[in-house]
């Protein structure tokens, strides 16, 4: 169902008219962004103790608030935004299980290019999953998820953008239970955002 909603909204965004009057989208202090991204989790077994090959589809609805006007006058010119993201993972491997988390998120968006805006982001927060009781790396169901990555937004209109990006994701319980080896994964994703 969520996939259908995503596809319908994506098609609506793609078929929206592109306004030529404003050469660049004007994102200022206080501009809010809501978005939805969908990705697929690919495992990284970084040590010999990591044996689980967790995989699954990831949904990430998010909200962000722009905190600054563009900083700097060179290639690094950009804006800081802060927000929150829900993370839902439906693990397909090694078992069909679920995970859900809530993460505050901070993002730096490079604004030197007009409609193409690369960004770097970091998010972290609590994460619940029933996978971790069934694998050797983790024991408890209450965990934390940390993710850091980069991506690029392409503004279709002044208020709508398509995003693609990559995140490195780490799930562990912060030493609250043992074992706590942690799960690491790559998360390529795509999505869209609306600015208002």
């Amino acid at each position, binding site marked *: 169902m969520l996939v259908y909603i995503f596809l319908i909204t994506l098609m609506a965004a793609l078929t929206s008219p592109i306004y030529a009057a404003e050469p660049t989208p004007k994102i*200022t*202090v*206080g*501009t809010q962004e809501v978005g939805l991204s969908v990705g697929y989790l690919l495992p990284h077994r970084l040590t010999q103790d990591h044996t689980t090959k967790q995989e699954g589809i990831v949904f990430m609805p998010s909200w962000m*608030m*722009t*905190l*600054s*006007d563009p*900083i700097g006058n060179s290639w690094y010119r950009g*804006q*800081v*935004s*802060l927000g*929150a993201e829900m993370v839902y993972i439906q693990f397909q491997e090694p078992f069909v299980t679920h995970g859900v988390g*809530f993460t*505050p*998120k*901070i993002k*730096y968006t490079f604004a030197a290019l007009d409609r193409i805006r690369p960004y770097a982001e970091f998010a972290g*927060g609590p994460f619940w999953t029933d996978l971790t009781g069934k694998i050797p790396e983790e024991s408890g169901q209450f965990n934390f998820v940390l993710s850091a990555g980069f991506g690029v937004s392409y503004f279709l209109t002044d208020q709508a953008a398509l995003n693609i990006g990559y995140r490195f994701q780490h799930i562990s319980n912060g030493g609250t239970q043992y074992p706590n080896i942690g799960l690491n994964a790559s998360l390529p994703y795509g999505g869209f955002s609306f600015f208002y």
Partner: protein
Amino acid sequence: MMGKIFSRPLIGSVLAMILGLGTGCSHWIELAVPTDAAPPTSATVATDARVPLLLETIRVTHNGSSIAPPTILERQVLGVIEATHLFSQHYQSGYSQPTADQARVTMRLSIDNLVEPHAGQAAWRGFVIGASMFTLAPFISLNYDYGAEMSLEMERWDGQIKQYTATSNGSAHYNLFGASPDVIEQLKGQVTEACLSSLLNQVIQDSIFYLTSSEQPRGNPIRTVSVGVRHSSPRAIPMSQPIADSSPR
């Protein structure tokens, strides 16, 4: 019994949420009182002695860089000038002009805007707010400073020139959930209006200089008009209150 046990934490949580959301969504604007602010001036001038005004140029810089003057700013400037009633008609360069032989006053306005968005502070405080899972959002405010320096050159029909300057600045303070582009626009609008008012107040003090004659012909009925500046008092705007509702009448 069960109702009593659960009601206190529940009521406490609801109150905390209401308080948190209420203060987390707040914003307020402060305008600094100009140290050289003169008291509002008004005068009564003869209607027939007034001449047209031509707004020739508006130059705008933004932190030292020249920018095209926004249309809304041009309208705001013309609106404030018209509200003084000092001039008989108001023309803008590029539109219809007064006739060449008609006495007129030519106005050239230069506006230097100084913007300090405190971007580094916002990033750091944003990180702290995020790390606290937004629980600190009601207690940490973000700031945006805006200032305007205006210099006005008024040239009379006979070539005599007078110059005026005015400065104004203010700050917007807002919590994370109270951030909005409207807050910044309100700050800019108020600072600009305060600066324009200060500038035109000085012009009103010289109102005789811009009239074709300080005396009315005898025997004719004298029609007069009161000229002055609508002053907006620099003050803090109550939290989350629309500016339009709190403007002085």
